[in-house]
């Protein structure tokens, strides 16, 4: 039996499989299907300093092997998360990855500071949500802004700080370098690609927000490419995500350079996706005589 443990920024994950922020709520719903303690970590819905209502419906559109969403960071605010959700999540033997967003540098620093004092294991700072108009997108696409916001957050972070990158950029390596030089302990990628669908009958955009974020298997090759480029460019651990469905997808993402992975959209098609993929990963390792899952990371042969 292969060793599945991963040391991620000093935090031990029992295995490299986590859930992608925003696709998994705070764990309650999928927790009806399996023990959340089977997962390496749980990425919770993106949090903001105050409660956010999010965008009106429709918030989702189907695309070939993908989906678009424009939830717009609906969440109860970081305080209610800390109060109401952490106690629930702590019942399970898994790591809590708090995903946070803001609209200004100060807000980012403020929420990172606050969540640092709460009982979470890792902080994932989302500088890349395409569905929040002011802030989000801009931060993640300009190296200077990335440096500024990450520096400010790092100064107050008391837990490992993972910076989540947007794929909607010309040069992902440049952004990754900016985040790491500003102190990011780790990176996660990819967030969603900006996309759009139109209802040809009504001639209106399907999404209320006109555009939305593309995720799911369709983006997998883009995610693998970006994880590979980022792994070449910087020296921090990476959580790879974007379209992962199977154990073999996890292997591919780790060979490209990821130390851990997150699974999101695949859960909608199959609620068991993360645990199924985890078991497939285990089987792959055993069949290939790989003693530790960490051997995969960056194991691409050129």
């Amino acid at each position, binding site marked *: 039996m292969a060793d599945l443990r991963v040391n991620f920024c000093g935090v031990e994950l029992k295995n490299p499989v986590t859930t992608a922020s*925003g*696709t*998994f*709520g705070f764990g*309650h*719903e*999928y927790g*009806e*299907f399996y023990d959340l303690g089977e997962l390496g970590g749980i990425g919770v*819905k993106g949090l903001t300093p105050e409660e956010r*209502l*999010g*965008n*009106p*419906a*429709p*918030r*989702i*559109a*189907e695309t070939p*092997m*993908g*989906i678009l*969403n424009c*939830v717009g960071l*609906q969440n109860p605010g970081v305080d209610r998360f800390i109060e109401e959700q952490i106690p629930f999540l702590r019942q399970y033997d898994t790591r809590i990855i708090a995903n946070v967003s803001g609209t200004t540098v100060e807000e980012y620093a403020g929420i990172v500071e606050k969540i640092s004092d709460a009982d979470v294991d890792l902080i994932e700072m989302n500088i890349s949500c395409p569905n929040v108009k002011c802030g989000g997108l801009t931060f993640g696409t300009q190296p200077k802004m990335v440096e500024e916001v990450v520096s400010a957050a790092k100064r107050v972070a008391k837990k490992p700080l993972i910076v989540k990158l947007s794929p909607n950029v010309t040069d992902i390596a440049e952004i990754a370098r900016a985040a790491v030089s500003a102190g990011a302990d780790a990176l996660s990628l990819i967030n969603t690609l900006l996309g759009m669908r139109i209802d040809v009958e009504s001639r209106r955009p*399907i999404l209320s927000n006109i555009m939305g974020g593309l995720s*799911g*298997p369709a983006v997998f090759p883009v995610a693998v490419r970006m994880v590979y480029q980022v792994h070449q460019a910087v020296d921090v651990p990476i959580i790879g995500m974007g379209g992962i469905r199977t154990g073999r997808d996890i292997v591919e993402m780790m060979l490209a350079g990821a130390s851990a992975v997150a699974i999101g*959209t695949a*859960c*909608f*098609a*199959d*609620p*068991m996706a993360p645990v199924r993929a985890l078991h497939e990963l285990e089987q792959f390792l055993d069949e290939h005589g790989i003693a530790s899952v960490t051997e995969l990371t960056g194991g691409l042969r050129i």
Partner: protein
Amino acid sequence: MSIQELCTVRDNRQLTGSVFALTLEAPRISSAAAPGQFVHIACGEARLLRRPISICQAHDGLLKLVFAAKGEGTQWLSRCSAGDVVDVLGPLGHGFDLSALGDRPVFIGGGIGVPPMLQTMQAARAAGAQPTAILGFRSRDAVILEDDFRAAGTVYIATDDGSYGIHGFVSDVLRAHIGAFTSVCCCGPKPMLRALAEIAQAAGIPCQVSMEERMGCGIGACLVCACALKAEDGAVRYGHVCKDGPVFYAEEVQW
């Protein structure tokens, strides 16, 4: 409690030009199902998202779904035949509140909103009420499930073009008979639900509406199926059709 069940198709039959009645062997989901709940069905390996379909009937280990073949997913489903296996999540959501229907509830369905009212009406009758159904269709060709509803109580059928039953809308029928009812449960297009809710409100009887929204997870985790509800301060808040609904009391909804 949501269940994922691989269900064998017992039967799939065409009711009208585009409407199909699918019977699935679903012992676990069917025994847990309550009126107004729905299932979320995977429609072939080429489509990522499941399709939400209301439960029309659930008994004896079987689940009966009645759906319109509209886009790619439901067309795929319409091609399934006996022996095929489909992946179903269910029963999902929050069905009709049967505790406060009174003894003369009316169940109103419009078009493809008709099927979920059947199980609900049957449940009300089983609980001792004297239910009525008002079913609206485009035209005579589109009428479905008439006999099943007749077996459960009084039935009015209205067609938009007058080709069958009453010429007019279900709202016309409700307005004409509103005094006879103690509560309203309904499913159909949003403008219809809104019209019915106004009539019920004017008459001072409770009204439950079953809402539709595009869905991702179907269980409350992804927050995409937002439904604008009235917050306490009168502002908007978003509930979620898959978990807080699909059935809401009409006065909660921000129309």
